[in-house]
């Protein structure tokens, strides 16, 4: 029985797919998700990933290289995400949620309308800890302030301003630090590298995702 049809019972661990593009470090992110109570499957197989309850797109690598890990026909992925599968895209993984990127050829998943552009700053990559101005969203629950680790040369520009739920300033640039569109969440920072506060953000995302999965299962009954 596939994870998506299972009813999320209280106390059962949320079935999370951590997608592996084959390049970067997934250990810290995997451990952070596990510490927050998730049952993590690291996989490079999209059908296995989509059969889980929650999808996490990690954030290491170049845009074009990550696109190579996407199948030619993305219909199944896009449909599953649009039907309410909670998604957390981190850094590059956030950028993949958008339509296009200045960094490379090809189209992203397009589940959050907008584009990816280069950071407008003298020193690029933006490398280090930076403050996130937090909007109202469950992923920021209990965080009075959030200084998170960034390592990026590109940032997302959502078409719909209300999709942005957090902002960060880098030199004179101000960009969407986090977006939400329904069950889809993207963060430009690396919460798995942002010490205690980052792990709190991951735990918050999972708690909200679990609520959504359970509500979806209730509605389907």
């Amino acid at each position, binding site marked *: 029985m596939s994870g998506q049809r299972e009813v999320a019972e209280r106390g059962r661990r949320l079935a999370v797919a951590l997608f592996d593009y084959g*390049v*970067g*470090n997934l*250990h*810290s992110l995997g*451990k*952070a998700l596990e*510490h*927050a109570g998730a049952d993590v499957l690291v996989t490079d197989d999209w059908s296995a990933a989509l059969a889980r309850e929650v999808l996490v797109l990690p954030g*290491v*690598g*170049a845009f074009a*290289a990550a696109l190579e890990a996407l199948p030619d026909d993305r219909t199944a992925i896009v449909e599953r995400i649009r039907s309410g599968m909670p998604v957390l895209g981190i850094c*590059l993984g956030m950028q993949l949620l958008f339509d296009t990127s200045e960094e490379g050829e090809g189209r992203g998943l397009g589940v959050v309308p907008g584009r990816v552009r280069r950071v407008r700053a*003298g*020193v*690029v*990559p*933006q*490398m*280090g*800890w*930076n*403050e996130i101005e937090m909007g109202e969203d469950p992923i920021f629950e209990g965080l009075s*302030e959030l*200084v998170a*680790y*960034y*390592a*990026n*040369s590109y940032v997302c520009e959502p078409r719909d301003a209300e999709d942005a739920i957090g902002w960060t*300033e*880098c*030199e004179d640039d101000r960009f969407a630090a986090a977006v939400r569109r329904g069950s889809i969440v993207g963060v430009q920072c*690396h919460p*798995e*590298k*942002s*010490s*205690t506060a*980052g*792990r*709190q953000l991951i*735990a918050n995302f999972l708690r909200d995702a679990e609520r959504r999965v359970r509500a979806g299962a209730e509605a389907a009954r």
Partner: protein
Amino acid sequence: MLRPRVVVCLDVKDGRVVKGVNFEGLRDMGDPVELAARYEAEGADEICFLDISASHEGRGTLLDTVRRTAEVLFVPLTVGGGIRSADDIGPLLRAGADKISVNSAAVRDPSVLTEGARRYGAQCIVASIDAARQDDGTWRHYTHGGRTRTDLDAVAWAASCADHGAGEILLTSIDRDGVRGGYDLELTRAVSDRVDVPVVASGGAGEAAHLRDAFLEGHASAALLAGILHEGLTTVGELKAALTGWNVPVRPYRRATSP
């Protein structure tokens, strides 16, 4: 606003943290996994492993050390030492490193930086510059742990590394390393003002004021230190408290609690 970073460096040999004592031998300082986690808890913004294993066995041990570290460490981890080609980068990243620093291999063939950046993104490729001041006031770049002098001007070479794809410069002053009289601020400023990627100042940290000077006068994005912490002369928390007192906007130090 991007916060100036405090980076803690650990010399790792055959899976242990070591420290040289007057060049007469290496003293065992402990388990890299435990020490890395302890420094995160003390407020370190980043950890750097410099692998000084010479043997193949040592390299294998390094991958295992990185893997075990990445499972308990939730701040970025840079790993340097012994990278010979772009093919050596992938396994370290897979094992759990966030950034890889390269020195000698880039001098032999700078395309290791370009290829590394193409495959994994510039943000994880660090060019390590070991610079020593020459009689004419310029700085020369050295390889092989500071033993081999090249004919490269260190400042120009740093710029060239950035052009070739490095996303960060780890800049060590050989003259200041271990002396604890402060970073080479002139060198740090010369490189920071020349390149448009972040520069990590290294070599010479003896007290909090040295870090402040590296940021404010040296224009460094990060300051790396080792000895004064390993010997227990101060802690990252104490350094950050002093920096905050001088209005250097480091990431606030809070005792980490496991969520």
